[in-house]
């Protein structure tokens, strides 16, 4: 590797090569057994993916700005995909997004629920107390939920 080139190239973040390799190899093992990948080809995959990210973000950024907003959101990205003619990605992506949102909603709801329950229990404990110390038993029995 030429060190001069390295100096310049290292300014550009790369996608982790092992992950790119894994994605490619797993796909190939489906499509055609024992297909190997030349090292230069792996680089080309990585580089192409990186440029794809740039291409997609520039487009999404444009769309975002057109709507007079500052923050690129999910819809901007989905619209951008259509604009660059990658609409066939939309199905899987929307499914991913939906799942991510569900999971987050679950977390939030769960965290909120847990907060509520802890509050309730505290209140119960306090009402049980007759001015003395806290009753250890109660704490044991009631503190059953996992932590976020």
């Amino acid at each position, binding site marked *: 590797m030429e060190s001069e080139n390295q100096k310049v190239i290292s300014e550009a973040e790369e996608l982790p090569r092992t992950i790119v390799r894994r994605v490619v190899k797993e796909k190939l093992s489906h499509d055609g057994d024992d297909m190997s990948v030349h090292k230069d080809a792996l680089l080309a995959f990585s580089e192409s993916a990186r440029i794809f990210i740039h291409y997609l973000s520039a487009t999404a950024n444009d769309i975002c700005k057109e709507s007079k907003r*500052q923050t690129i959101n999910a819809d901007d990205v989905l619209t951008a995909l259509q604009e660059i003619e990658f609409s066939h990605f939309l199905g899987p992506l929307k499914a991913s*997004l939906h799942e991510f949102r569900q999971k987050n909603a679950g977390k939030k709801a769960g965290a909120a629920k847990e907060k509520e329950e802890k509050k309730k229990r505290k209140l119960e404990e306090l009402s049980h107390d007759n001015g003395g110390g806290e009753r250890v038993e109660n704490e044991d029995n009631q503190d059953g939920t996992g932590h976020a």
Partner: protein
Amino acid sequence: MESNNNNNNSNNNNNTTQIAHSSSYPLQPTPPPPPPPSSAAATPFHHLLQQQQQQLQMFWSYQRQEIEQANDFKNHQLPLARIKKIMKADEDVRMISAEAPILFAKACELFILELTIRSWLHAEENKRRTLQKNDIAAAITRTDIFDFLVDIVPRDEIKDEAAGLVGGIVGAAAASGVPYYYPPMGQPAGGPHHGGMMIGRPAAVDPTGGVYVQPPSNAWQSVWQGHAATDDVSYGSGASSGHGNLDGQS
């Protein structure tokens, strides 16, 4: 003392009943049919096209199923922080919502998968068991929507296909509107390009080139040119050396 996780129920209950398909992968590695020695130009290649379209369609519906079945979102293949960094290398890009990198990670993965399939098809056509850089270059050449990559993986080694085909493809594609169209083997590479050597030419930033579909976003152009100015990996600064942009970088 119980240790159940009450708050995280979406992981385990999520969408497991949706798809009843078996886990076998629907995309069969069928080799494309060999072109008949003499026939109408379009027929064998359109057949190949159709086959590819079908395979790709099956691929995408499989992808959707896979995602709907996946229940652990933590297994992101591509690291979100890295993706964010790449996005932010574009100075124009400022704020990114939390959901955006997730979409980018997935889109990126899908992109790599599609590029892999298309490259693999080329390797198969040439009866090779090793996927090479020129397979990727061929996939980029053949696929309209991959035009933005034309300078990233240039075709410096045109071994497998007649050099004359290459120039003819792009010219014909623009004219006929068909995504990829292979003129008959014997046809010389006419059109606006010199015989077969147009690949590597920065059609992306050449507005007079005529055959390149301009990317819809102007912002993209400035990123492109900005990179050309600052980056050694020349994305299209006009000088077509014909040498691989990726040589010597690993």
